Protein backbone atom coordinates (compact mmCIF):
# COMPACT_ATOMS: atom_id res chain seq x y z
CA UNK A 1 0.00 0.00 0.00
CA UNK A 2 2.76 2.47 0.94
CA UNK A 3 4.29 1.78 -2.47
CA UNK A 4 1.53 3.54 -4.38
CA UNK A 5 0.16 5.89 -1.70
CA UNK A 6 2.15 9.02 -2.79
CA UNK A 7 1.09 8.49 -6.42
CA UNK A 8 -2.53 8.31 -5.31
CA UNK A 9 -2.11 11.50 -3.25
CA UNK A 10 -0.88 13.28 -6.39
CA UNK A 11 -3.94 12.06 -8.33
CA UNK A 12 -6.29 13.06 -5.52
CA UNK A 13 -4.80 16.58 -5.28
CA UNK A 14 -5.14 16.98 -9.07
CA UNK A 15 -8.80 15.88 -9.06
CA UNK A 16 -9.55 18.14 -6.09
CA UNK A 17 -8.16 21.06 -8.10
CA UNK A 18 -10.26 20.06 -11.14
CA UNK A 19 -13.40 19.90 -8.99
CA UNK A 20 -12.66 23.38 -7.68
CA UNK A 21 -12.11 24.71 -11.21
CA UNK A 22 -15.38 23.30 -12.51
CA UNK A 23 -17.53 24.47 -9.60
CA UNK A 24 -15.80 27.80 -9.03
CA UNK A 25 -17.98 30.88 -8.58
CA UNK A 26 -15.06 33.29 -8.36
CA UNK A 27 -12.21 33.70 -10.83
CA UNK A 28 -9.64 34.31 -8.06
CA UNK A 29 -10.73 31.03 -6.51
CA UNK A 30 -10.38 29.39 -9.95
CA UNK A 31 -6.78 30.64 -10.28
CA UNK A 32 -6.08 29.18 -6.84
CA UNK A 33 -7.55 25.84 -7.97
CA UNK A 34 -5.28 25.85 -11.01
CA UNK A 35 -2.31 26.23 -8.63
CA UNK A 36 -3.61 23.20 -6.70
CA UNK A 37 -3.63 21.16 -9.95
CA UNK A 38 -0.08 22.33 -10.57
CA UNK A 39 1.00 21.33 -7.06
CA UNK A 40 -0.20 17.78 -7.82
CA UNK A 41 2.45 17.51 -10.54
CA UNK A 42 5.13 18.45 -8.00
CA UNK A 43 4.02 15.65 -5.68
CA UNK A 44 4.07 13.21 -8.61
CA UNK A 45 7.51 14.32 -9.85
CA UNK A 46 9.16 14.20 -6.43
CA UNK A 47 7.60 10.78 -5.77
CA UNK A 48 9.04 9.44 -9.03
CA UNK A 49 12.51 10.62 -8.01
CA UNK A 50 12.42 9.31 -4.42
CA UNK A 51 14.93 6.66 -3.40
CA UNK A 52 15.04 4.83 -0.04
CA UNK A 53 17.75 6.02 2.33
CA UNK A 54 19.00 8.61 -0.14
CA UNK A 55 19.96 12.23 0.45
CA UNK A 56 19.85 15.48 -1.58
CA UNK A 57 21.90 15.43 -4.82
CA UNK A 58 24.30 18.13 -3.63
CA UNK A 59 27.96 17.18 -3.20
CA UNK A 60 29.36 20.30 -1.51
CA UNK A 61 29.60 18.42 1.82
CA UNK A 62 29.08 14.86 0.63
CA UNK A 63 31.73 12.56 -0.77
CA UNK A 64 30.59 11.41 -4.25
CA UNK A 65 29.58 7.76 -4.14
CA UNK A 66 29.38 7.55 -0.33
CA UNK A 67 25.55 7.65 -0.23
CA UNK A 68 22.78 7.20 -2.77
CA UNK A 69 21.10 10.44 -3.86
CA UNK A 70 17.55 11.07 -5.06
CA UNK A 71 16.88 11.75 -8.75
CA UNK A 72 18.05 15.32 -9.51
CA UNK A 73 16.25 15.58 -12.87
CA UNK A 74 12.73 15.65 -11.42
CA UNK A 75 13.85 18.04 -8.67
CA UNK A 76 15.18 20.47 -11.29
CA UNK A 77 11.89 20.23 -13.21
CA UNK A 78 9.92 20.95 -10.04
CA UNK A 79 12.03 23.89 -8.96
CA UNK A 80 11.82 25.74 -12.27
CA UNK A 81 8.11 25.18 -12.42
CA UNK A 82 7.47 26.54 -8.93
CA UNK A 83 8.86 29.96 -9.90
CA UNK A 84 7.50 30.02 -13.45
CA UNK A 85 4.11 28.81 -12.16
CA UNK A 86 4.02 31.72 -9.70
CA UNK A 87 4.54 34.28 -12.48
CA UNK A 88 1.92 32.62 -14.67
CA UNK A 89 -0.48 32.80 -11.71
CA UNK A 90 0.35 36.51 -11.50
CA UNK A 91 -0.54 36.90 -15.20
CA UNK A 92 -3.87 35.13 -14.65
CA UNK A 93 -4.63 37.35 -11.64
CA UNK A 94 -3.86 40.40 -13.80
CA UNK A 95 -6.46 39.10 -16.27
CA UNK A 96 -8.94 38.76 -13.39
CA UNK A 97 -8.27 42.39 -12.39
CA UNK A 98 -9.11 43.50 -15.94
CA UNK A 99 -12.22 41.27 -16.12
CA UNK A 100 -13.43 42.72 -12.84
CA UNK A 101 -12.91 46.29 -14.12
CA UNK A 102 -14.58 45.77 -17.49
CA UNK A 103 -17.49 43.54 -16.44
CA UNK A 104 -17.94 44.40 -12.78
CA UNK A 105 -18.01 40.74 -11.74
CA UNK A 106 -15.60 37.87 -11.18
CA UNK A 107 -18.22 35.10 -11.33
CA UNK A 108 -17.47 33.01 -14.45
CA UNK A 109 -21.16 32.06 -14.83
CA UNK A 110 -22.27 35.68 -15.03
CA UNK A 111 -19.48 36.43 -17.50
CA UNK A 112 -20.86 34.06 -20.13
CA UNK A 113 -24.27 35.71 -19.72
CA UNK A 114 -22.78 39.16 -20.22
CA UNK A 115 -21.05 38.16 -23.43
CA UNK A 116 -24.34 36.76 -24.76
Amino acid at each position, binding site marked *: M*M*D*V*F*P*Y*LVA*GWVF*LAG*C*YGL*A*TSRNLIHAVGCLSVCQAATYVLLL*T*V*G*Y*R*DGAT*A*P*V*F*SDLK*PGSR*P*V*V*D*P*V*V*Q*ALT*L*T*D*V*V*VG*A*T*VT*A*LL*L*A*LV*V*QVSKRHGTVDP*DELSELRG
Partner: protein
Amino acid sequence: MSRRVRLWLLAVGGAGLATLFVAAALDLPALGGDHHPYGDRAVHASLARHTANVIASVNFDQRAFDTLGEMTILFAAVVGCGVLLRQTRDEHRDRPAPEKVARPVRRHALLVLPVALLTGLYVIAHGQLSPGGGFQGGVVAATSLHLLYLGADYRALERVRPVGLYETGDAIATSAYVVTGLAGLIGGTAFLANTVLPYGTFNTLSSGGTVPLLNAAVGMEVACAVVVLLARFLDQAVEIEEGNGK
Protein backbone atom coordinates in the same frame (compact mmCIF):
# COMPACT_ATOMS: atom_id res chain seq x y z
CA MET B 1 -24.40 24.45 -19.75
CA SER B 2 -26.25 24.25 -16.46
CA ARG B 3 -24.51 23.54 -13.17
CA ARG B 4 -26.06 20.08 -12.91
CA VAL B 5 -24.87 18.98 -16.34
CA ARG B 6 -21.42 20.37 -15.66
CA LEU B 7 -21.14 18.47 -12.37
CA TRP B 8 -22.24 15.23 -14.05
CA LEU B 9 -19.71 15.71 -16.82
CA LEU B 10 -17.02 16.37 -14.22
CA ALA B 11 -18.03 13.27 -12.24
CA VAL B 12 -17.84 11.04 -15.34
CA GLY B 13 -14.51 12.50 -16.50
CA GLY B 14 -13.05 12.49 -13.01
CA ALA B 15 -14.08 8.86 -12.40
CA GLY B 16 -12.52 7.85 -15.72
CA LEU B 17 -9.30 9.71 -14.98
CA ALA B 18 -9.14 8.31 -11.43
CA THR B 19 -9.57 4.72 -12.70
CA LEU B 20 -6.86 5.10 -15.35
CA PHE B 21 -4.56 6.88 -12.89
CA VAL B 22 -4.89 4.18 -10.22
CA ALA B 23 -4.31 1.46 -12.84
CA ALA B 24 -1.18 3.30 -14.03
CA ALA B 25 0.07 3.94 -10.48
CA LEU B 26 -0.22 0.23 -9.60
CA ASP B 27 2.04 -0.57 -12.57
CA LEU B 28 4.69 2.07 -11.81
CA PRO B 29 8.03 1.08 -10.28
CA ALA B 30 7.66 0.83 -6.49
CA LEU B 31 8.33 3.96 -4.44
CA GLY B 32 11.93 4.46 -3.33
CA GLY B 33 13.32 1.90 -5.76
CA ASP B 34 16.98 1.84 -6.71
CA HIS B 35 16.50 2.11 -10.46
CA HIS B 36 16.95 5.75 -11.56
CA PRO B 37 18.81 5.61 -14.89
CA TYR B 38 18.41 9.32 -15.73
CA GLY B 39 19.27 10.46 -12.22
CA ASP B 40 22.43 8.35 -12.10
CA ARG B 41 23.60 9.68 -15.47
CA ALA B 42 22.83 13.27 -14.46
CA VAL B 43 24.89 12.87 -11.26
CA HIS B 44 27.76 11.37 -13.25
CA ALA B 45 27.72 14.18 -15.86
CA SER B 46 27.53 16.84 -13.15
CA LEU B 47 30.55 15.48 -11.26
CA ALA B 48 32.49 15.22 -14.52
CA ARG B 49 31.95 18.97 -14.99
CA HIS B 50 32.89 19.88 -11.39
CA THR B 51 29.41 21.11 -10.41
CA ALA B 52 28.67 20.21 -6.79
CA ASN B 53 24.93 20.95 -6.95
CA VAL B 54 23.59 18.41 -9.44
CA ILE B 55 20.25 20.24 -9.71
CA ALA B 56 22.06 23.40 -10.89
CA SER B 57 23.96 21.28 -13.37
CA VAL B 58 20.71 19.82 -14.72
CA ASN B 59 19.11 23.27 -14.98
CA PHE B 60 21.99 25.29 -16.37
CA ASP B 61 24.10 22.74 -18.21
CA GLN B 62 22.41 19.48 -19.17
CA ARG B 63 18.97 21.02 -19.72
CA ALA B 64 20.05 24.63 -20.26
CA PHE B 65 17.94 24.90 -23.41
CA ASP B 66 14.86 23.90 -21.44
CA THR B 67 15.66 26.61 -18.87
CA LEU B 68 15.84 29.13 -21.74
CA GLY B 69 12.24 28.17 -22.50
CA GLU B 70 11.27 28.62 -18.83
CA MET B 71 12.93 32.04 -18.80
CA THR B 72 11.01 33.03 -21.90
CA ILE B 73 7.73 32.07 -20.18
CA LEU B 74 8.77 34.18 -17.19
CA PHE B 75 9.62 37.12 -19.43
CA ALA B 76 6.38 36.78 -21.39
CA ALA B 77 4.35 36.67 -18.16
CA VAL B 78 6.01 39.89 -16.97
CA VAL B 79 5.37 41.64 -20.30
CA GLY B 80 1.77 40.38 -20.26
CA CYS B 81 1.20 41.72 -16.74
CA GLY B 82 2.71 45.04 -17.76
CA VAL B 83 0.24 45.32 -20.65
CA LEU B 84 -2.79 44.15 -18.65
CA LEU B 85 -2.19 46.25 -15.54
CA ARG B 86 -1.33 49.56 -17.19
CA GLN B 87 -3.19 52.74 -16.38
CA THR B 88 -6.10 53.18 -18.80
CA ARG B 89 -7.65 56.38 -20.12
CA ASP B 90 -10.52 56.39 -17.63
CA GLU B 91 -8.21 56.08 -14.62
CA HIS B 92 -5.90 58.43 -12.80
CA ARG B 93 -3.07 58.18 -10.31
CA ASP B 94 -3.52 59.28 -6.71
CA ARG B 95 -0.42 59.89 -4.64
CA PRO B 96 -0.92 57.63 -1.61
CA ALA B 97 -0.79 59.51 1.67
CA PRO B 98 1.98 58.54 4.10
CA GLU B 99 0.74 55.85 6.46
CA LYS B 100 1.56 55.46 10.12
CA VAL B 101 3.49 52.26 10.80
CA ALA B 102 3.60 50.62 14.22
CA ARG B 103 7.08 51.05 15.67
CA PRO B 104 7.85 47.33 16.24
CA VAL B 105 6.82 46.55 12.64
CA ARG B 106 9.03 49.34 11.31
CA ARG B 107 11.99 48.30 13.45
CA HIS B 108 11.82 44.63 12.54
CA ALA B 109 11.16 45.21 8.84
CA LEU B 110 14.16 47.53 8.52
CA LEU B 111 16.29 45.11 10.55
CA VAL B 112 15.39 42.09 8.45
CA LEU B 113 15.65 43.89 5.08
CA PRO B 114 19.46 43.87 4.70
CA VAL B 115 19.66 40.32 6.07
CA ALA B 116 17.05 39.09 3.60
CA LEU B 117 18.69 40.90 0.68
CA LEU B 118 22.09 39.45 1.54
CA THR B 119 20.58 35.97 1.95
CA GLY B 120 19.01 36.27 -1.50
CA LEU B 121 22.30 37.29 -3.12
CA TYR B 122 24.13 34.52 -1.23
CA VAL B 123 21.65 31.91 -2.44
CA ILE B 124 22.10 33.12 -6.03
CA ALA B 125 25.90 33.22 -5.83
CA HIS B 126 26.20 29.72 -4.36
CA GLY B 127 23.71 28.15 -6.77
CA GLN B 128 26.27 25.76 -8.26
CA LEU B 129 27.54 24.65 -4.83
CA SER B 130 24.72 24.38 -2.31
CA PRO B 131 20.94 24.01 -2.49
CA GLY B 132 19.46 27.12 -4.06
CA GLY B 133 20.32 29.06 -7.18
CA GLY B 134 19.01 31.82 -9.39
CA PHE B 135 15.36 30.84 -9.24
CA GLN B 136 15.08 30.70 -5.46
CA GLY B 137 17.57 33.46 -4.60
CA GLY B 138 15.96 35.83 -7.08
CA VAL B 139 12.61 35.55 -5.31
CA VAL B 140 14.22 36.08 -1.87
CA ALA B 141 16.17 39.15 -3.04
CA ALA B 142 13.13 40.70 -4.74
CA THR B 143 10.76 40.20 -1.83
CA SER B 144 13.30 41.59 0.63
CA LEU B 145 13.00 45.02 -1.04
CA HIS B 146 9.29 44.97 -0.32
CA LEU B 147 9.92 44.87 3.43
CA LEU B 148 10.38 48.59 2.92
CA TYR B 149 6.69 48.79 2.03
CA LEU B 150 5.81 47.16 5.35
CA GLY B 151 8.38 49.06 7.40
CA ALA B 152 8.08 52.51 5.88
CA ASP B 153 5.49 53.26 3.19
CA TYR B 154 4.81 53.07 -0.51
CA ARG B 155 6.75 56.24 -1.37
CA ALA B 156 9.90 54.92 0.28
CA LEU B 157 9.58 51.72 -1.73
CA GLU B 158 9.14 53.67 -4.97
CA ARG B 159 12.31 55.64 -4.28
CA VAL B 160 14.52 52.51 -4.06
CA ARG B 161 12.67 50.74 -6.83
CA PRO B 162 12.55 52.61 -10.15
CA VAL B 163 10.42 50.10 -12.10
CA GLY B 164 11.88 51.10 -15.48
CA LEU B 165 15.35 50.10 -14.34
CA TYR B 166 14.12 46.66 -13.26
CA GLU B 167 12.26 46.16 -16.55
CA THR B 168 15.53 46.88 -18.37
CA GLY B 169 17.36 44.54 -16.01
CA ASP B 170 14.87 41.79 -16.79
CA ALA B 171 15.49 42.15 -20.53
CA ILE B 172 19.28 42.37 -20.10
CA ALA B 173 19.35 39.21 -17.98
CA THR B 174 17.34 37.28 -20.59
CA SER B 175 19.70 38.51 -23.32
CA ALA B 176 22.74 37.61 -21.21
CA TYR B 177 21.50 34.03 -21.04
CA VAL B 178 21.12 33.86 -24.82
CA VAL B 179 24.52 35.53 -25.37
CA THR B 180 26.20 32.96 -23.09
CA GLY B 181 24.51 30.29 -25.16
CA LEU B 182 25.76 31.86 -28.39
CA ALA B 183 29.29 31.90 -26.95
CA GLY B 184 29.11 28.11 -26.99
CA LEU B 185 28.13 28.26 -30.65
CA ILE B 186 31.02 30.60 -31.51
CA GLY B 187 33.35 28.42 -29.43
CA GLY B 188 32.78 25.75 -32.06
CA THR B 189 30.43 23.36 -30.27
CA ALA B 190 26.70 23.94 -29.81
CA PHE B 191 24.21 26.49 -28.48
CA LEU B 192 24.36 26.61 -24.65
CA ALA B 193 27.01 23.86 -24.56
CA ASN B 194 29.14 24.07 -21.42
CA THR B 195 32.51 23.96 -23.19
CA VAL B 196 33.58 27.61 -23.30
CA LEU B 197 35.03 28.08 -19.81
CA PRO B 198 37.33 25.81 -17.78
CA TYR B 199 35.44 23.68 -15.24
CA GLY B 200 37.58 24.97 -12.34
CA THR B 201 38.20 23.36 -8.96
CA PHE B 202 35.35 21.24 -7.59
CA ASN B 203 33.31 22.96 -4.85
CA THR B 204 34.59 26.52 -5.40
CA LEU B 205 32.59 29.57 -6.51
CA SER B 206 34.07 29.56 -10.01
CA SER B 207 33.54 25.86 -10.69
CA GLY B 208 31.18 24.42 -13.28
CA GLY B 209 32.10 26.33 -16.47
CA THR B 210 29.16 28.43 -17.68
CA VAL B 211 26.83 27.21 -14.88
CA PRO B 212 27.56 30.18 -12.54
CA LEU B 213 27.05 32.67 -15.39
CA LEU B 214 23.71 31.23 -16.49
CA ASN B 215 22.71 30.88 -12.83
CA ALA B 216 23.47 34.58 -12.23
CA ALA B 217 21.52 35.57 -15.34
CA VAL B 218 18.49 33.61 -14.13
CA GLY B 219 18.86 35.08 -10.63
CA MET B 220 18.85 38.61 -12.04
CA GLU B 221 15.90 37.88 -14.29
CA VAL B 222 13.79 36.32 -11.55
CA ALA B 223 14.58 39.14 -9.10
CA CYS B 224 13.70 41.82 -11.67
CA ALA B 225 10.60 39.93 -12.80
CA VAL B 226 9.23 39.60 -9.26
CA VAL B 227 9.93 43.28 -8.52
CA VAL B 228 8.15 44.39 -11.71
CA LEU B 229 5.18 42.07 -11.13
CA LEU B 230 4.70 43.20 -7.52
CA ALA B 231 5.09 46.83 -8.62
CA ARG B 232 2.25 46.43 -11.18
CA PHE B 233 -0.08 44.89 -8.61
CA LEU B 234 0.83 47.42 -5.91
CA ASP B 235 0.19 50.23 -8.40
CA GLN B 236 -3.30 48.85 -8.99
CA ALA B 237 -3.95 48.48 -5.27
CA VAL B 238 -2.44 51.73 -4.01
CA GLU B 239 -2.18 54.36 -6.75
CA ILE B 240 -4.50 53.82 -9.69
CA GLU B 241 -8.09 54.97 -9.08
CA GLU B 242 -11.16 54.95 -11.28
CA GLY B 243 -12.34 58.14 -12.95
CA ASN B 244 -10.35 60.99 -14.50
CA GLY B 245 -9.62 62.61 -11.15
CA LYS B 246 -11.33 65.92 -11.91
